């Protein structure tokens, strides 16, 4: 099995550990993720509010590269890239938008028909690989650890894909297969604020406080995430949140691929665990015990 792989900008900067752990887990399962040469930004956030067409065309250029190489499926880690790339594919197939897309892409000598299936790595692990295969290679079940599954808002938006857009459950299943105790979590798909953190920090901090709060209320030892933006906001802003809301959160936030990798016995280095911020060590310590 092999898939074309789109890392997205974050996986080369703030979420190198997501990139590393994803590759490690897929490799342990015997699946090749083939990197794309010459990929570009998916066009999310800033560009999309300035010029929606250009932002869509940016994504479509990536899809054009995948089509050119003859791959059918593109594996994506970031929820935001996932949402953009999926929409770009739809736009290329939709007769109302296709002509505009074609002409923008023509200016960079690219053609995109929207044939590529854009799939999130969570979707691939649950629906292509299947939980049975994952269960089979678990060496160190993460028993006794409670985890809050946080999916982020874009996994099922603008339209539901492989899971319910309001209350998805596929990651819950995956995490329990590796021995984790998945706590009920209402705020699974509540927005983390994404780049609002840079423009309207007050609002974004409040959104993240609510998510952290529920994870603590539910008695979770940590939060599993599957999007670099969610990770950044929930993890790196805890001290700011603590200051603003007079709280004392010290919640470990890990990528779900890191948790799977640990259970599979993949080394700390390969999963990027050494890149941890302070809180993460709490959970890692519990694992090693």
């Amino acid at each position, binding site marked *: 099995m092999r898939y074309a792989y789109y890392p997205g900008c974050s996986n080369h900067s703030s979420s190198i550990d997501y990139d590393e752990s994803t590759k490690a887990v897929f490799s342990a399962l015997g699946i090749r993720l083939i990197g794309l040469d010459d990929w570009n930004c998916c066009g999310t956030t800033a560009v999309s509010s300035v010029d929606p067409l250009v932002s869509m065309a940016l994504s479509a250029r990536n899809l054009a590269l995948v089509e050119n190489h003859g791959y059918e499926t593109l594996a994506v880690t970031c929820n935001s890239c996932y949402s953009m790339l999926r929409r770009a594919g739809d736009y290329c197939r939709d007769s109302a938008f296709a002509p505009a897309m074609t002409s923008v892409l023509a200016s960079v000598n690219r053609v995109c028909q929207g044939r590529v299936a854009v799939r999130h790595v969570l979707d691939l692990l649950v629906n292509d690989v299947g939980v049975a295969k994952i269960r089979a290679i678990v060496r160190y079940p993460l028993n006794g650890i409670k985890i809050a599954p946080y999916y982020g808002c874009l996994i099922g938006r603008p339209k539901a894909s492989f899971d*319910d857009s*309001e*209350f998805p459950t596929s990651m819950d299943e995956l995490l329990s297969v590796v021995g984790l105790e998945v706590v*009920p979590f*209402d*705020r699974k798909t509540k927005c983390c604020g994404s780049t609002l953190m840079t423009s309207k920090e007050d609002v974004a901090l409040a959104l993240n406080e609510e998510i952290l709060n529920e994870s603590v*209320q539910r008695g979770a030892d940590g939060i599993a995430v599957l999007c670099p933006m969610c990770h950044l906001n929930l993890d790196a802003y805890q001290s700011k949140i603590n200051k603003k809301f007079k709280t004392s959160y010290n919640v470990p936030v890990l990528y779900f691929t890191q948790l799977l990798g640990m259970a599979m016995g993949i080394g700390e280095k390969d999963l990027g665990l050494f890149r941890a911020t302070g809180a993460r060590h709490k959970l890692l310590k519990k694992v090693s015990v």
Partner: protein
Amino acid sequence: MSDIKVGVYVCHCGTNIADRVYVSGVAEFAGSLPNVVVARDNQYMCSDPGQEMIKKDIKEMNLNRIVVAACSPRMHEPTFRKCLESAGLNGYQFEMANIREHCSWVTEDAEEATEKAKALVAAAVARVPYHEALYERFTDMCSRTLVVGGGIAGIEAALKVAASGNQVVLVEKEPSIGGNMARWDKTFPTMDCAACILAPKMVAVSQNDNITLHTYSEIEKVEGFVGNFKVTIRKKARSVEMDKCTGCCLCYGKCPVKVPSEFEAGLGTRKAIYIPFPQAVPNKPVIDRATCTYFKNGKCGVCRKTCPTGAVNYEQEDELLVEEFGAIIVATGWQTFDPALGSQWGYGRYDNVYSAIQLERLVNASGPTKGKVVMKDGRSPKSIAVLHCIGSRDKNYHEYCSRLCCMSSLKLALLLKEKTKGEVYNFYIDIRSAGKGYEEFYNRVMEEGVHFIKGKGAEVIEKNGKLVVRAEDVFLGKYREVPVDMVILSTACEARSDAARVAQVFGIQRSRDGFFLEAHPKLEPLRTATEGIYIAGCCQGPKDIPDSVAQGAGAAAEALSLIAAGKVKISPVVAVVDANKCAGCKICLPLCAYKAISFDSISKVAAVNEALCKGCGTCAASCASKALNIKHFTDEQILAQIKEVLAV
């Protein structure tokens, strides 16, 4: 065809046609066409003066073919056929050119519209010389009526038909009649108890000598045509012999199996042998074979041992009845939207999120809590939110308004206020209280101190041990979070999950929302595209009780006016076989959707049953030897028409 004399009449239809089509120009053009003796235009051709004009011309100018260019033949073809007949012509020596729906209403440019109108008129003029005089026939019919569905609409229809002295067979899928209404506690706006007003009607059904009741039965097959339907009814094995059972209830007291009760919307339990609810008609139990221990592993048999009259019969089998009917009334009802489909409302996840129908059972004196409104932990709720439009007015689920839930929500809010003395919040988009006494009822509920928040309940979450409803309060222009103990989801009224299958059995069409389609949205609300099959109640669309009752009675009137005539008219527009041309290949036999074609094994040619044939033309199109033709739609007629349309 030198003796053909055509009169052409072009209608203005007020401004409907004249706004786009240069009507007098079309009439002038028509006057120049071959065979046309006279061509005129008129404000309203369907009016008495318009018709008189045609009659006068027929008499004075010896016209023998008439073309009217006006609206759709679906509107006024019968009008003009009658007009021709009263002037001594055959009604089929007439053709209508549709220059309204097909032309003026759908064309922007006046010149283009006029050109199109001319083409349509020319085509009609070219067609009429080939028209032949055709005659409608009448056939005998059966005077019995079949009513399918024993909810309030079906009950009303059955009682009204039976009151005329005609025979009715009422078929209900469930073990008891009563339908959804039997599950309601109170009815708006009068707050009288649903069971109290429904039960007398249910009993009246069981006591009426003209009504034969088949509960726990379904329609398997419908054959035949208006006046002469042949219907196969499957009486599912009840496992209890109705004539022996006295309804003493000893059997289910001893039954060891407990399963969630459908009637109690999953809140209470019932036994495997059970009577669905206390007022059930017939008040005799049924064994649910899917959960009964005896049927699962052959052990048990307690109910058979307990029954003092030996009525329990495990060996009973389904029974198939084939009966004849003149008319059929379909009143198969509706179901509530499953709120679990919208995970944002927390139904099925939080203990104290209930659907409206569950609350109906909670507040009901014979319900699982004997009428007490309590939370799962037994406490009485101090604050309750009622969320309107769950599944309705929402493009993710149903775009339509379910009509009855606003009033039902108000009723439930009032009951909750009275029973709990707590705070009750209604989250609504708009309050739709159109109905007699409905707005007054809304005012009363407001005066009783129920809170109204204009904003749809977007989601329900749990926070600090309480349910929190989130909504945008559009009056305040603010986002609100209201903590409550209990949430009620006022779910949409939707087409039943088996509506597609039922529609197929009866040959009924469905509208985009899944409900059964009426013949005309305003003027034929109870008829369907199939003659002799009528619809009533919520199977056609969401309705409250008064409307369902009115439709049930209306459908009865439709059936009775058919039966009272004693004969059914058969259209002459049917397929005919030219036995000399028929090669006997039998291709047409399986193609006929109405099973109207048979094969004559002696003469080895196809034969058409004119009573069954609908004149659809499928056979004629498929016949390789051109032996099949449709009267009034012959090849000559259609080709002449097409040639002219393309020529202008």
